[in-house]
């Protein structure tokens, strides 16, 4: 696959800045003060046991969940209740879901071009051209006129990635993109992600794919009980973790 053209490099060094982010669901505190800076072009893999708040955290970054305390600043725009900021940030941040969340009543092409046409206000031709480019890059240009229900899980997830990328975001969030896939399909999606990671995108990915983390991550973050327990370079993280909790976690998943 060809190397992918990344977005233009911004002069703001830290594209994502989180300070003391808190989030409660009723009485339950899901995020207990998360601090994180992400540089432009950095690839971050977030690990952690289920229920540790890692999904909640990245969903806070594009306002699918609302944080109640602390600050989130994305590409220089603070995520507040301000409608304009929310819209701005959602344009900058693209998200790929565990369940793909393709629109089943639209063809693949319509799925990809709907947002560019109506949100970005592009002409249909421009949107379709770019959509076709991305479909080609994720390797399924021939599926453009099919409905999502006619595709395999891996193909669907690749369409979802193409849909996100056609909107030209600067930051990509992956929320366990391979968890709902059959083993033989995981590879095709990981290949695309790997390519994107090397292509200069800023990526935050929640995933259990250790290979992916080892290979392309600039940093690995370990989440537990709503907090960042450890941040480390992948080689360090997997071979020589600093924290006891991390060791335990790695033991459990690696020797399983």
């Amino acid at each position, binding site marked *: 696959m060809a190397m992918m053209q990344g977005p233009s490099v911004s002069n703001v060094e830290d594209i994502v800045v989180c300070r003391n982010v808190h989030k409660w669901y009723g009485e339950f505190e899901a995020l207990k003060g998360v601090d994180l800076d992400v540089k432009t072009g950095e690839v971050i893999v977030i690990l952690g046991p289920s229920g540790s708040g890692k999904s909640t955290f990245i969903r806070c970054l*594009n*306002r*699918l969940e609302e944080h109640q305390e602390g600050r989130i600043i994305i590409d220089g725009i603070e995520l507040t209740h301000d409608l304009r900021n929310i*819209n701005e940030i*959602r*344009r900058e*941040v*693209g*998200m790929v*879901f565990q*369940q793909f*969340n*393709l*629109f*089943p*009543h639209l063809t693949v092409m319509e799925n990809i071009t*709907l*947002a560019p046409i*109506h*949100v970005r*206000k592009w002409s249909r031709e421009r949107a379709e051209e770019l959509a076709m480019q991305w479909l080609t890059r994720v390797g399924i240009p021939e599926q453009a006129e099919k*409905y999502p*229900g*006619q595709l395999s899980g891996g193909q669907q997830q690749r369409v979802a990635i193409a*849909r*996100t990328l056609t*909107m030209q975001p600067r930051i990509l969030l992956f929320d366990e993109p391979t968890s709902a896939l059959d083993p033989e399909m995981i590879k095709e999606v990981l290949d695309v992600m790997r390519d994107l990671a090397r292509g200069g995108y800023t990526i935050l990915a929640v995933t259990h794919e250790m290979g992916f983390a080892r290979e392309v991550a600039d940093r690995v973050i370990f989440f537990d009980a709503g907090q960042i327990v450890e941040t480390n370079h992948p080689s360090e993280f997997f071979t020589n973790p600093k924290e006891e909790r991390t060791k335990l976690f790695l033991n459990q998943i690696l020797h399983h």
Partner: protein
Amino acid sequence: MTTLTNTIEERRKTFFKRFNWQYFLQDNLTGSRWLTIWVAFITLVTVGVFVGQLGSAPGWTLILTAVWAVGILMVVAGELFGLHTSFSRWLKDNLLSSISNTLVTLLIILLVAQVVSGIWQWGYVTATFDSTRTAPDLRSEGATWGVLWGARKLILTGTLAPEHTWRVILTGAMVFVLWLISFIATRPTVKTSMGYLQRISITLWLLAPIASYIFLAGLEYHEPFINIRTLLTGLVIVVAFMALLWFFKVIKLDPVSIGLWVAAWPIGYVIWQLIARTGIFPTINVDEWGGLLLTVIFAIFVNILSFPLGILLALGRRADVQGIPVWIVWPIALIATVYLLSTSTPELWTTSRNNVERALALWPLLIPIAAYFYQRSFQGNMVQAFSVLFIELIRGVPLITLLFMAIVMAPFFTASGSAIKNFWAVIVGYTIFSAAYMAELVRGGLQAIPKGQYEAADSLGFNVLQKYRFIILPQALRILIPPLAGSVIGTFKSSSLVALVGMFDLVGIVRGIIGNGQWLGLRSELYAFLFVLYFVVSSGVSWYSRRLEKRMGLGTR
């Protein structure tokens, strides 16, 4: 010949080797106490019915029983000699599978025969079909079907003046032609070769209600031919509507579509005035519509109007807009309570005549209670609170009270001096009722859409209107086709209730016909006719909707 008897003899022997009386009895009679009681009971009933019918109609009873016995013989022969045909096997599996089933079969055959022959006797054998012999002294023992032909005009269009009948026919013809066009347009071969036909047919369908209104209600001509004020007002409304849609990014602005939209109104206005000036379609009082015409108008009108209203209510019920916060609600509620307690209560209290009125004088105390529930159930979300209350209140009362209220109460709530026609009052009451039920259906559809669809739309940056317009509603409506078809049928059926508030729809006009000297008391004939008519139309619609659903389903997946 001998070989044949030999083989049969052999089969018989193998059968008896397989067959075990003990098992047979256990399966059919003695398996459990309940089975024994059930078989005894069903035997008793069957014998009773058989004997009873033998007395009243010996011929038929014997023939049917003989047919049943032949069936049993076929099954027994099949079992005994292995001579099963596919028919006898079917009999054995479906009608004669056990002793009790065999008896039930006979029982049902006899009972059905009795009912059918009764209806047949009344409806055909002793009936008269002559439309001139419907007066009470000319009737025969059975049904007097002549009334259907004799009163056909009333049944079809009610009290509508005969010179307007052609307009009804014209409307019917128009609808038929439109249906034909869309039928052709959706044929697979045509769909690909002449795609524009489908667009044309949709446009025509959208214009059809206006055309029908012109045909059936007529147009009144107002001088001058072009009223600048009306023209401009209409134009402003169209532009404002477009601007709204554009603001919420539902439509895009391009010169062609702007031109089309802006030109549509003046052109429509001129055509409207042109038709009005010719006087081809003089106005008809809507309260003159009756019979089948009125029933159909009600069903269509109410369905079309309640659909968008129902969607709005459903969206309102699910709206998760930021509610009015507690710190605004409570102070206002408390101030209002104190203020009203000090102004309204003393006067009411001093003039009260009994304890009930004294209690009612304390009504401001209800305000904090209402505020509490408002905060607790709706978190201050007024849109949701209103939708929920509206839907639940409407669904809590019978349709007929709403219809009656619309007719009786309308004069109280309209601006003084303006009379409202019963037809419109009933339309309003019925639409509100239907919309509340529609809202619950649509809500069900919206709930069936996975949360991920909403999240995907949000993450791609759609605004609320776009999200519902492009992603949620198309999916929800597809899920909703079967329940919506059910609702359309329901509205059609319940429209018969308008007769109870004095409208002359099918049932209402039939009640009138029955009171008419020439057709006095021909209830069974007319009600039976309506029964069949409603049945045919309702099952027709539900059959068509199932077909439609299948076809749409095939197109997408």
